[in-house]
């Protein structure tokens, strides 16, 4: 086989590649955060029906999208870990879930603070809100299962299976607003026919997307690198004791 997927699952190669990319990721994250927040908060128009509250969108929408994108990435990593037993993909799944949980919480939190002035309620049990809350519980269950066993390998396997089962929830979140009557409005961004957002608002939103993606990549790299280094330290200590 000319193409060997194992080449990417090599921790040494990952350390080299992520070390090379890290300064760029940091730079992109800082620049897009500064530019995105400036446009989102100061230099973008108000909305014709929501007024200034529309600025919550610039945090809420990217956070909600990241919560689903990270879950899908985690499910792919878990599947690769379960099927092909790549240790690096197990590690990636483990490092992703707290970041995904944080974005899910951010989406729910900003959504609640947006819902009160616009809809007139902090929370309702409609299909969109409920399935997003379920996503938060899936992330927390994943983290709990990882640490629930004395044997880390068993924890990894159980958490991986939970993650794969939970991936069913992703299309439910995305299409809940089309399949059922919900209080949450239908999709504005990823929908048939293109976005229903004016370009003056779409550009800051795109910058915030880059900012959130950069932040996710940055934190994921740092977490994975420190996990790899600490396992190396453990191995060296063991060798020292037994050697």
């Amino acid at each position, binding site marked *: 086989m000319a193409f060997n997927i194992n080449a990417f699952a090599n921790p040494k190669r990952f350390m080299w590649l992520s070390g090379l990319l890290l300064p760029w990721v940091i730079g992109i994250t800082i620049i897009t955060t500064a530019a995105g927040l400036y446009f989102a908060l100061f230099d973008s*128009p108000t909305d*014709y029906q929501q007024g200034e509250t529309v600025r919550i969108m610039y945090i809420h929408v990217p956070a909600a999208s990241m919560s689903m994108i990270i879950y899908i990435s985690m499910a792919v990593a878990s*599947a690769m870990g379960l099927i092909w037993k790549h240790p690096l993909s197990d590690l990636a799944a483990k490092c992703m879930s707290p970041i995904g949980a944080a974005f899910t919480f951010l989406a729910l939190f900003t959504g609640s603070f947006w819902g009160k002035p616009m809809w007139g309620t902090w929370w309702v049990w409609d299909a969109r809100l409920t399935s997003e809350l379920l996503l938060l519980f899936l992330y927390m269950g994943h983290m709990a299962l990882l640490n629930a066993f004395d044997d880390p390998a068993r924890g990894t396997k159980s958490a991986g299976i939970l993650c*794969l089962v939970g991936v069913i929830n992703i299309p439910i979140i995305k299409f809940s607003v089309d399949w*059922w009557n*919900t*209080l949450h409005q239908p999709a504005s961004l990823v929908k048939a026919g293109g976005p*229903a957002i004016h370009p003056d608002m779409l550009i800051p939103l795109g910058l915030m997307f880059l900012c959130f993606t950069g932040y996710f990549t940055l934190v994921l790299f740092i977490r994975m690198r420190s996990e790899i280094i600490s396992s190396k330290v453990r191995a060296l200590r063991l060798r020292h004791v037994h050697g």
Partner: protein
Amino acid sequence: MKKKTRRLYIALVGLCALGAIAALVLAALEDDIVFFFSPTEVIEKGKIEPDRRIRIGGLVEAGSVEKAADGVTNIFVVTDMANTIPVHYKGLLPDLFREGQGVVAEGYFQNDVLVADEVLAKHDENYMPPEVADALKKSGKWEEGQPITEALKQGHVPDELKDK
């Protein structure tokens, strides 16, 4: 079969089975998952018992909003363009409550009138600056509640607004 291949098939079959189960369960529970019923759905259900709490949703019919003689009860009509239901609501209406806008009202039926104790605003998925909305309305290319995707794409935004 290699172990890896077998694990791959187990995962694929498992996910397909799970997807099918989820789809069947969600389809069966549809009436419990929907957040509200449209006026047409309510009328199809026949008589609603007066002790059954129900949520209805639709648009606030244009020209239907008024205050009752007591000065605190809001009276309006919810429509889905096919059928209508009158609503009485004592309390503060959300800021986004307007004629022609989406609304969800929750309460009990009394003589074919929904006496609501909670009214929530449901807004559409369009985002644009107020000047653009006004210009689009004036040009007749768009009205509230309609999707703006096409209007935005066809560039029905006046040039003098584009650099704003």
